[in-house]
């Protein structure tokens, strides 16, 4: 099929949302009109999705770059588009989920003021432009540029309800934590440039991530660069202990959580590793660290997810946990495993969030206790949510099963027994907490608002059902996806797969037994309350808040005091000395003739004495 060249399609996919961003953003009457602005935004997302789909079908690779920065008359940095299997498939994932979320928002955000809705779609268009630009990056520098821009979009969208103080705090916190981590990416880029410059004849470095670059800078250099890059990945992809911003980010509208903080933006860290994999492969120490940290995050976040009462918080910790799987898989040397899980996770996690959004929309609350028994009222979205939960729990045949299995296999093959066991355990916990959510929200005792709940409108239902299809079907795309990434994949049952599946089914059974069938009473469950409270208290979050308040703000106040009263104090002291010195000297000019005669006399005596002394 030859509709347009790959570069044209890529440019359309990236630039269409930029155009809608500018149109909605700059034309104030359109922005303030609400719904029309929303349709313009959706048109941009549709264009991107179609272009991305054509790009995937086309299958060709190409690259177009323009010189961007130079030194001494030659250019070393460029921006442009790189089309290949990885970027084309990721582009389709991002655009499609964005499309689903933007359509879903038509219904979900219907209570918003027209001006608010216009602002919402402005930021969504900005996000889609930045994210597509990130995906198509031909080098690490452009990825960094877009990386920061998606962070901006995230900040703006988390803070969408800017009148709410908690939303403001969450937005700023998300920006700060990711920005702190981005010091790593900035430093990594600078290091990459300096190291490649040393190896080049004309003294110019580069920001490429090719195997040739990895070879040129050697293991030592690659360890520095990949290690620094990974710090930023920890921030963006919410790895322990920098995950603390993600649960707070749930302050944003639920569709935003689905798109940015579950399916696409948080996966940018994983995508960076996928793109820069040659550099990571040359740095075995970094890979080993990733394997352990990812596994630890997977199990740590899964444990926290089991005690959350807010449906979005459960899903947020679940996202941390699943990103941990991806990181761990990449660390174990499986590029495809990590990427495959990103691919399937984007579908079913977006589904879960949008499904949760439909439930929240119906009962006007995020709390699981306010839901209950919703399945009877919302059969379609309820079923879709259950499908998403099963896909996440790793039930055989659904999307999550295949990709999680690939990662677990890779860990097993690499001989990393401890992270492998951690991930297996996390798989069981995942099934447990998702079953808990389903049991509490959809079945069981009806909540306060259940009576008045209605099935979601079509604008919300269509995207949910579309994503439900991906939650079922995406796992079967493993073969074609592997081909696009340049890997081999075919599913086989193995020991690991059987253990993981058994643990998953066990988790579902346990979850249902406790929260669905209620074989233990609430009183018996209360025995575990102190543990739950301890986990919910989030020691990591509190330590970070302590460091911010005392170490950072305290140090700032100290320095500011020092500047005002010591550094500037010395300046004032100088002025004071000059002024008071002048006042003292002024008394010598008394104006009385006697004083002057006296002074002349003393002077003459001193001069004569000096003359005699010298003679």
């Amino acid at each position: 099929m030859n509709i347009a060249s790959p570069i044209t399609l890529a440019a359309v996919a990236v630039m269409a949302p930029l155009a809608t961003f500018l149109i909605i953003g700059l034309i104030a009457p359109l922005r303030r009109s609400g719904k029309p602005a929303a349709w313009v935004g959706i048109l941009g997302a549709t264009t991107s999705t179609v272009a991305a789909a054509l790009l995937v079908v086309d299958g060709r690779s190409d690259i177009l770059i323009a010189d961007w920065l130079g030194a001494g008359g030659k250019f070393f940095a460029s921006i442009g588009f790189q089309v290949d299997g990885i970027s084309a498939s990721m582009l389709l994932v991002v655009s499609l989920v964005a499309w689903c979320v933007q359509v879903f928002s038509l219904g979900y955000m219907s209570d918003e003021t027209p001006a608010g809705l216009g602002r919402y779609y402005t930021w969504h268009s900005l996000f889609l432009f930045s994210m597509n630009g990130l995906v198509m990056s031909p080098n690490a520098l452009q990825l960094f540029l877009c990386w920061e821009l998606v962070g901006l979009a995230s900040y703006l969208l988390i803070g969408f309800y800017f009148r709410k103080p908690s939303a403001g705090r969450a937005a700023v916190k998300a920006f700060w934590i990711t920005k702190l981590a981005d010091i790593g990416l900035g430093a990594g880029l600078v290091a990459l440039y300096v190291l490649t410059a040393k190896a080049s004849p004309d003294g110019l470095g580069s920001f490429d991530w090719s195997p040739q670059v990895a070879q040129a800078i050697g293991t030592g250099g690659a360890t520095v660069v990949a290690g620094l890059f990974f710090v930023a990945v920890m921030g963006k992809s919410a790895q322990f202990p920098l995950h603390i911003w993600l649960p707070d980010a749930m302050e944003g509208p639920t569709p935003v959580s689905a798109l940015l903080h579950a399916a696409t933006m948080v996966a940018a860290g994983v995508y960076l590793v996928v793109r820069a994999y040659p550099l990571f492969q040359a740095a075995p120490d970094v890979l080993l660290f990733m394997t352990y940290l990812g596994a630890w995050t997977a199990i740590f976040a899964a444990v926290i997810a089991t005690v959350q009462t807010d449906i979005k918080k459960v899903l947020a910790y679940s996202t941390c946990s699943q990103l941990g799987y991806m990181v761990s898989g990449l660390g174990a040397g499986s590029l495809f495993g990590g990427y495959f899980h990103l691919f399937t996770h984007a579908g079913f996690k977006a589904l879960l969030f949008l499904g949760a959004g439909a439930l929240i929309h119906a009962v006007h609350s995020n709390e699981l206790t306010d839901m209950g028994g919703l399945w009877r009222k919302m059969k379609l979205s309820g079923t879709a949510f259950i499908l998403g939960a099963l896909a996440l729990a790793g039930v055989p045949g659904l999307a999550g099963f295949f990709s999680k299995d690939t990662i677990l296999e890779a860990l097993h093959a690499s001989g990393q027994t401890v992270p492998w066991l951690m991930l297996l355990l996390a798989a069981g916990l995942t099934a447990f907490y998702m079953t808990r959510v389903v049991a509490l929200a959809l079945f069981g005792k009806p909540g306060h608002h259940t009576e008045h709940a209605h099935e979601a409108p079509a604008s919300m239902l269509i995207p949910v059902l579309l994503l439900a299809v991906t939650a079922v079907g995406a796992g079967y795309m493993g073969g074609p996806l592997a081909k696009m990434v340049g890997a081999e994949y075919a599913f086989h049952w193995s020991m690991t797969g059987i253990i993981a599946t058994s643990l998953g089914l066990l988790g579902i059974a346990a979850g249902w037994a406790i929260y669905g069938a209620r074989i233990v009473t609430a009183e018996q469950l209360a025995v575990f309350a102190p543990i739950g409270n301890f986990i919910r208290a989030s020691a990591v979050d509190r330590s970070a808040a302590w460091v911010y308040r005392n170490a950072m703000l305290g140090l700032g106040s100290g320095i500011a005091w020092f500047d005002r009263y010591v550094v500037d104090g010395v300046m004032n002291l100088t002025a004071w000395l000059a002024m008071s010195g002048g006042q003292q000297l002024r008394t010598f000019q008394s104006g009385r003739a006697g004083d002057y005669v006296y002074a002349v006399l003393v002077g003459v005596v001193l001069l004569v004495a000096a003359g005699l002394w010298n003679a």
Partner: protein
Amino acid sequence: MSQHLLDFTVAAPAFAALLLLFIPVRAMNVVRGVSLVGALAHLGGAIAVALNYDRAVGGVQMVSTHAVVPSMGIALTFGVDGWGVPLLLLTAVMLTTGVFASWNVQPRARDFFVLLLLLTSGVAGVFVSLDLFIFFLCYEIAVLPMYLLIAIWGTAKKVEAAGPFRFVWKMLDVGGKEYAAMKLTLMLLAGSALILAAMLALYTGAGSTSFDLRHLAMTTYAPSVQTWGFLAIWIGFGALAGVWPFHTWSPDGHAAAPTAVSMLHAGVLMKLGAFGVIRIGMILLPEGARDWVWLVGSVAMINIVYGAMSAMAQKDLKYIVAYSSVSHMGVVMLGAATLTINGWNGAVFQMVAHGLMTGLFFALVGLVYGRSHSRWVPDMGGFANKMPAVAVFFTIASLSSLGLPGLAGFVAEFLVFLGAWQSGQVIWAVAGLVGAFVTAVYVLRASKSIFWGPGPSEQFHDLTDAHGTEWVALTVLATALIVLGIWPRLGLDFIDIATSEYLPAVAQQTLEALR
């Protein structure tokens, strides 16, 4: 034509100032009109210079010379190099937007515009001067009107007596506008004394025949002149660039100054300091520069982190922005100290980026202060409900300040950090990155406190969004920040030419080794 282009560009504001003296004080619209025409003539000249500059040829172009004191070799010589083009444009943009930002200045608007235009001619003169004497003369013309501008049109803020030197409060009105004006002037003049001494050493060391910079650059000075001359120039000009610990005039001065004066002072005058250190200190005294860059860079590192930390603790909006200038000027000095192409390109680019950014900041602060009559951030909140456009522009300035890609600040900081690492001083680059993070903390915190949240409270019930002429400064500056951020080559292609010409001699290395 082109040989008088620079004369015209530099003289246009001063001529407008002269004209204003003959216009009655009450004719406000005529005063505004003449000022605006002067500013636009300056801007037009600067644009013509940029279009006229042949990048393929490079070097100093459009040279014009008028002998002033032939016996001493003083001549009014102007010429523009790759650095001069963007810096001249920056000056013109800041003046033009500054005129719009002072549209309703009170009282004695005419006198205000006279001083504003005069000092701008001085600034432009420094950027294109090829004669050290004229360079210094223009520098003083730029610095001295500040005293009156702050002392007459400024605002005061009381500072509590405290600290080990609290006894000085009996004699000094710390924080008052006369205090701020006097402090700024005295500290900068103390710097000028050092510059003057160094200037005389340069003149006599080169045979006492000419003040021409090109002549002086060909002279190899004795080691003692190199060492002590550079130190004097670094401290002398550095005081204006906000080099620690001689920066303390800046927070008080910029906080006390009226809007357009803060815009021009932080936006372009501080750049004169950094420009002087590089253009006079480093290029004329390369050995001295190489001896001292360790100190220049280390102090710049202090500027960046210490300035940002101080800004974080401020509660007065103008002090936040003023301390952020101290921090960001550290990036310029750090770039200069790296003695690499990327570092120098980044330093000059940061002069432009920070000028635009801080100009936008001060314009916004002026708007907020003019409407709310408060600069006290903890009192504010929810202003975005009443002034959404101001909130958007404030966010753009904040984002450029914290180095967000897509805005000019990022390009500058990134180049400087590249240069810092290339020069082997990894700690400099790390300090810069940490400074960028601390900047993110304080600007977003301020932005949240002012604009986000419910409200605003009853005290601020009559806030209105930007309107009329106020839009000009905001849109022009924000657009410039975005355009330079997306396509930095618009500035960098000029800057790189001059850097490539000057740096190899200063660093004593080939271009290849410096990239």
